[in-house]
């Protein structure tokens, strides 16, 4: 038999002024199953809580309803009190008679009736509450960081420095990502390589970090604290244990004219190569598509030139299975191909380049050793036009969103150019200058005021070649007139887009993505670094366009989430999770599709001899967040949600 205690709180005058608490106490006392009903001025006070505990002990209560303020205020308080008195905390419910009743109604009689109905429906609910215990999930205290750009490196270092193992996976042959390609960085103009390289080395040498470059994630299974990850180690054809990184092979390789991805096509590389001089690890890979041996079965010059026989053409892809507790996804971005702007002539005129190509030109380790030279004739451009929003904020041809970093790097480019080419002129076509950030607006002002960048507010309509120069026609919307500039080089501030395989990869890992392919955070404002899947976190541009400080900050934030998760051996989770009645489940998998968290899996029911009897849905309590969408979907009423079971809700409605 149910023995429910009902505790009606006056909340001083807050409740008592509009609800006749004495009448309410008497009326609810007559409700079937109510063993005790008492009123008190402040149940949330110490003596109030003590009286609840005393009543639980004295009457042997099987459930408690506190009619008071919103459960969002004091549910935790009273559930704790119940637990202290030996009653399972989930056998306590709160009837909200303050926010939802006394504070919003003026008629005392009506308010009292309403309070009674609210309270008794919760008495009916609590009669059907089950004892619940926090779900404990064991945690493998090893993190996986996917992506070896600045965000991934930062996250890996932060986690490793806290003493936990990290597996850092990078699909290119070297760490570094986009940041390694940059020249100087805004707003301080310090050299990107100078701040990046030490980080790369630190990550590679860190005793807690296992660095897997030229590696890709094949499969992710499991759930928070207990992922099983399969990593494909792509074959380098170079024995990593032997190779000393002397570079002889690259010098001897006869195929040398491959356009360098790292240099954005402005430089060349061999078929056996490291992406760039400071690569970490400094071990080359063979580009099998271009290598003469792999194409024709003849050559092997690199192998012959290697003093220590580190080159082995027979090495195949290897697979590693790693147990992981938490995953940081830091897979970065791509820049948009601006081919859709035929009118800007990218691809047609060699001197129309992207911002990233400009970075390579300006980089001391780049193809021009830091000199700004035109790709067409290696001459120094005297006038450079920068076109901002060449793709961003353009719903018709590009993308709708702002790529966030272009205003700043364009200002930086103008500055770098001014510093390197004295007397050179810059014109910047822009839509708005978005320079929010520490030192950012000052930086753009400096570009304008000290380095005489000429900002023209308006869009460029056409770029064409005339007498060896690039003619740029646009409009100055502030002056309201067309502008035409003869330039030697045009730099397009192209949009940041998601990695081309971002959506596929999201499915591999099991996280959500938006229409652009950027990964969805669990909550844009309050949980910006968590993905919608528990235990998987997001850092850097894979979530949305960001600059370096933001990427680093987000990376450190993911590290703090991972460390919080790793702070205990067991992960405790609210037991408000779904579970399935396997006997009645029809195995239609509607719940599997409907679950926002991928928390429902298929489970085979076998008989004693191992024969398949049927397949049913099975909820993984480690992943379930307790929304209950599956319950509503389930036609056979097989799935139910603890804390809000069908029985409880039914009783609550029927008790109204």
């Amino acid at each position: 038999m149910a023995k429910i205690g009902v505790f009606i709180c006056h909340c001083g005058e807050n409740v008592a002024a509009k609800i006749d608490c004495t009448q309410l106490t008497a009326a609810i006392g007559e409700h079937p199953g109510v063993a005790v009903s008492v009123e008190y001025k402040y149940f949330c006070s110490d003596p109030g809580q003590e009286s609840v505990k005393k009543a639980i002990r004295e009457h042997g209560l099987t459930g408690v309803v506190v009619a008071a303020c919103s459960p969002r205020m004091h549910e935790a308080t009273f559930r704790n009190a119940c637990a202290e008195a030996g009653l399972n905390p989930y056998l306590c419910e709160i009837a909200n008679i303050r926010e939802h009743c006394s504070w919003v109604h003026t008629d005392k009689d009506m308010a009292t009736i309403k309070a009674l109905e609210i309270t008794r429906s919760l008495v009916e609910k609590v009669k059907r509450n089950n004892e619940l215990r926090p779900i404990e999930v064991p945690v493998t205290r090893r993190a996986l960081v996917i992506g070896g750009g600045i965000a991934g490196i930062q996250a890996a270092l932060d986690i490793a420095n806290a003493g936990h193992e990290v597996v850092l996976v990078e699909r290119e042959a070297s760490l570094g990502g986009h940041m390694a390609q940059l020249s100087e960085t805004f707003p301080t103009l310090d050299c990107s390589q100078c701040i990046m390289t030490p980080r790369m080395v630190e990550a590679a040498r860190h005793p807690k970090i296992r660095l897997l470059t030229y590696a890709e994630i094949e499969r992710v299974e499991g759930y928070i604290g207990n992922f099983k990850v399969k990593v494909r180690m792509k074959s380098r054809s170079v024995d990593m244990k032997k190779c000393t990184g002397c570079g002889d092979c690259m010098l001897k390789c006869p195929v040398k004219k491959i356009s360098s991805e790292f240099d954005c096509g402005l430089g060349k590389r061999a078929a056996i190569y490291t992406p760039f001089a400071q690569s970490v690890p400094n071990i080359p890979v063979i580009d099998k598509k271009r290598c003469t041996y792999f194409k024709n079965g003849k050559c092997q010059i690199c192998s012959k030139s290697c003093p220590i026989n580190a080159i082995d053409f027979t090495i195949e892809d290897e697979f590693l299975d790693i147990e992981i507790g938490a995953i940081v996804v830091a897979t970065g971005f791509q820049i948009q191909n601006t081919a859709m702007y035929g009118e800007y002539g990218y691809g047609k005129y060699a001197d129309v380049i992207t911002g990233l190509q400009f970075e390579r030109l300006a980089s001391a380790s780049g193809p021009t050793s830091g000199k700004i030279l035109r790709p067409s004739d290696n001459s120094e451009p005297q006038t450079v036009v920068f076109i901002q929003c060449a793709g961003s904020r353009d719903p018709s041809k590009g993308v709708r969103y702002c790529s966030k970093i272009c205003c700043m790097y364009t200002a930086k480019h103008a500055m770098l150019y001014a510093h390197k080419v004295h007397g050179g002129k810059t014109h910047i076509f822009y839509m708005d200058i978005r320079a929010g950030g520490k030192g950012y607006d000052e930086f753009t002002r400096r570009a304008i005021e000290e380095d005489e960048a000429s900002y023209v507010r308006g869009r460029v309509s056409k770029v064409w070649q005339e007498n060896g120069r690039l003619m740029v026609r646009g409009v100055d919307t502030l002056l309201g007139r067309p502008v035409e500039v003869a330039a030697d080089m045009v730099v397009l501030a192209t949009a940041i887009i998601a990695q081309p395989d971002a959506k596929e990869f999201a499915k591999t890992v099991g996280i959500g993505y938006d229409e652009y392919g950027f990964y969805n955070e669990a909550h844009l404002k309050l949980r910006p670094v968590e993905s919608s899947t528990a235990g998987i976190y997001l850092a850097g541009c894979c979530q949305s366009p960001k600059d370096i400080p933001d990427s680093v900050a987000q990376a450190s934030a993911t590290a703090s989430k991972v460390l919080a998760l790793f702070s205990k051996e067991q992960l405790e989770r609210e037991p408000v999770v779904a579970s399935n009645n396997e006997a009645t489940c029809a195995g239609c998998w509607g719940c599997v599709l409907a679950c926002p968290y991928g928390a429902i899996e298929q489970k085979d029911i076998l008989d004693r001899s191992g024969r398949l009897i049927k397949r049913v849905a099975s909820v993984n309590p480690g992943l379930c967040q307790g929304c209950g969408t599956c319950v509503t979907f389930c036609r056979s009423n097989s799935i139910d949600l603890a804390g809000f079971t069908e029985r409880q809700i039914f009783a609550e409605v029927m008790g109204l």
Partner: protein
Amino acid sequence: MTRILFADKLDNCLERWRSAGISVIGPVKKSNSSGYSAVTKAAEFDFNLVLPERSIKELFFPQSEPLMRYEIKKQEINTSEFKAPTSERIIFGVRPCDAAGLAIDDPLFGWDYQDEYWFQRRRETVLVTIACTKADDFCMCTSLKLTPDSEKGSDILLRPLENNSGWQVEELTDRGREAFKIIADLLQESQEKAAPTAVVEEKFDLEAALAWLKEPENFESHFWKEISMRCIGCGSCTFLCPTCHCFDIQDEGDTYSGIRRKNWDSCSFALFTMHTSGHNPRSTQSARWRQRIMHKFNYFPGKFNLNSCSGCGRCSRQCPVDMGITETLQELSKLLR
């Protein structure tokens, strides 16, 4: 000379009975479905139906009968019983198979516990049966040793006249005589001839079928699986059957009060025999169909010396997959030969 009730007097009869406090029920087709319903005017009767789709059973054993109301108080539960209605009534235009069906169920509802919900209604009801002058492919009363003008269960038997203008009246019971006394002056003596009763072909050898069913080894016969393969497990045969009588007790209500009801149930339903443990002794549809046949033609006769079937043929007539008792008994009576 026989007494005749002419159809044009029917409205007067209804009026007489109504003034005597007797309500009249008869075969009616409305909303595209036929059954026995309350009638106030003769024009509402539909005597052309071979058989109403829903059987007469629901007038004595309603599909959902409230048994008692309960109110849950803190210290006690108050209950009040529902009684079967006590108003007198005449069901006019009953088919002989339906009347016989009621007679078949009488011993069932009274063998240990007298089900007053049934017997109260039986006592208060006069069954005025009309002999059948036409039958369809599903009628099988003759196979059950009944006839299209069987008297079983009836209080009055009417035989339609050749010219369809009325009925010859045969009073079978005192209750029938009572009811017809009220309209005695509306009946006429006449020489009018009754139309021939319908010819219903005998569809199976009942004795052979019964003998086969009694053989214990046939319980596990492969026959059951074969014959029931297309059965989809709905309850339409059992619910339309005039003699099927299984029911379930349900409480319906909210926190404060509710009603305990007696609802039809069907041995065709997969959950009919489901145990709380999850075990289901009749876990296949073939076991359930076997149970239905065995119950009607083996267990029920064993207990009451009666077959629990009056040959109305509704089970076959309305089966969504064209199964039914006829086919099953036909097939199994063949097995013996």
